[in-house]
C-alpha cells in the first residue's frame, strides 16, 4: 500500500500542479489573445486603404504647419507657404503643392509666384496611391478674414473590383492649422 501511494501524486501536489498550470495557461492565453486582436486590427486595413491613409498623413503633415495668412495661399491651385524655424531662430520658407498624376500623387516643393501663379523653382517627389483627385478648401477665421483657420481636404479614391477600377468615392477630411491667433 505504501509503495503504491509513493508512485502517485498526493492531493496537495496535484492541487499545486493544477493551480500552476492554470496560472500559466491564463498567462499564455492572455498573450495569444492580445496578439490575435492586434493582427485582426491590422487585417481590417487593406493595403489600398493603407496607401491612401499614408498619403493623407503626408498631406496633413504639410497642412498642419502651413502659414495662416490668406496671402500665403493660392486657393485655386492649392499651393501654400510652409515656414519652419530651427533652434537657432533661422526661418525657412518653402512653397508646397500637391497634384494628382497617373497612379498617385506628386508633391511639389520650392518657390512659387503667387501673383503670376506659377512655379519659379521646384523639386518633385512621387507617392503611389489610388487617389484620383485632391482639392483644398480654405476656411478663414470668423472674426478675422485675413487668417486661415481650417482646411478641408476633398479627395476621391478609385475602388478596385475584380482587378478593374470601377467606381470612385469622394471623401472629406479636415485639418486645423497649428499656426493660429491666441487671445
Amino acid at each position, binding site marked *: 500500500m505504501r509503495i503504491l501511494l*509513493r*508512485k502517485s*501524486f498526493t492531493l496537495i501536489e496535484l492541487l499545486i*500542479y493544477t493551480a*500552476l498550470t492554470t496560472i*500559466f495557461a491564463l*498567462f*499564455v492565453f492572455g*498573450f495569444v489573445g492580445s*496578439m490575435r486582436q492586434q493582427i485582426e*486590427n*491590422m487585417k481590417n*486595413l487593406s493595403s489600398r486603404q*493603407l496607401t491612401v*491613409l*499614408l498619403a493623407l*498623413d503626408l498631406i496633413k*503633415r504639410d497642412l*498642419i*504647419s502651413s*502659414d*495662416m495668412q490668406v496671402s500665403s495661399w493660392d486657393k485655386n491651385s492649392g499651393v501654400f507657404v510652409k*515656414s*519652419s*524655424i*530651427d*533652434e*537657432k*531662430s*533661422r*526661418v525657412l520658407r518653402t512653397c508646397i503643392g500637391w497634384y494628382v498624376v497617373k497612379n498617385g500623387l506628386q508633391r511639389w516643393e520650392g518657390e512659387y509666384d503667387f501673383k503670376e501663379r506659377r512655379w519659379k523653382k521646384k523639386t518633385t517627389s512621387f507617392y503611389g496611391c489610388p487617389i484620383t483627385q485632391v482639392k483644398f478648401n480654405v476656411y478663414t477665421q470668423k472674426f478675422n478674414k485675413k487668417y486661415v483657420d481650417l482646411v478641408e481636404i476633398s479627395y476621391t479614391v478609385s475602388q478596385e473590383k475584380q482587378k478593374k477600377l470601377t467606381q470612385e468615392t469622394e471623401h472629406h477630411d479636415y485639418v486645423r*492649422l*497649428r*499656426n*493660429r*491667433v*491666441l*487671445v
Partner: protein
Amino acid sequence: MMQQRDGFAVLLVLFATSAVMVLGLACWYQSSLAFDVIAQRERYYKNFYDASAALDTGLVLVTKNFDLFFNQLTLKNNSSISLDLGPVLEPVRLKNTRIILNIGQFKNKTEDQKQPKLLVQVRLYDTHARTSLCDLRCLVIKTGVKIKKEKREKSDEQYLVQHFTIGNLL
C-alpha cells in the same frame, strides 16, 4: 523514488520549454512591430499628440506670463529657460519619458523685430533609450492688439503662433 524524481523532471522540462516558447514569441512579436507600418504610425501619432498637448500647455503658460519671460531673457541675456512639464502632464505622459519646455529668445536679424517674440519648444525625451521622440517648435508674437471679450471687464492681449515646426520625430 526514482519514478517520482522522473515525474518532477518531466514537469520541470515542460515548464522550462513553455517559458522559453513564451519568451521567444514575445521577442518575435516585438520585432515584427518594429517593421509594421501601422504600429509605427500609431507610435508616431502617440508621440506627436503628447508633445502637442505639452506645447498647448506651454503656450498658455507663455501667453499668460509673456512680459515676465521676455524681460527675464532680455535683461539677463539668457538664451533660454527650461521647464519640466512632466508633473503638469502626468495623465498623458508615456512611461520613461520627460517633457521639456524651452522658452528662448528669437535672435533673427532678418525678421521684423518691432514686436516682441519668444521661441517656444517642446521636447519629448525617452529617458530609457536616451533619444528625442518628438520635437515641436513655434514662435509666439505679441501683436500689441487688445481684444475686448463679452462679459469681461479687462481686454485680452492678442498673440500669434507662427512657424509651427515638427522637428525630429520617431
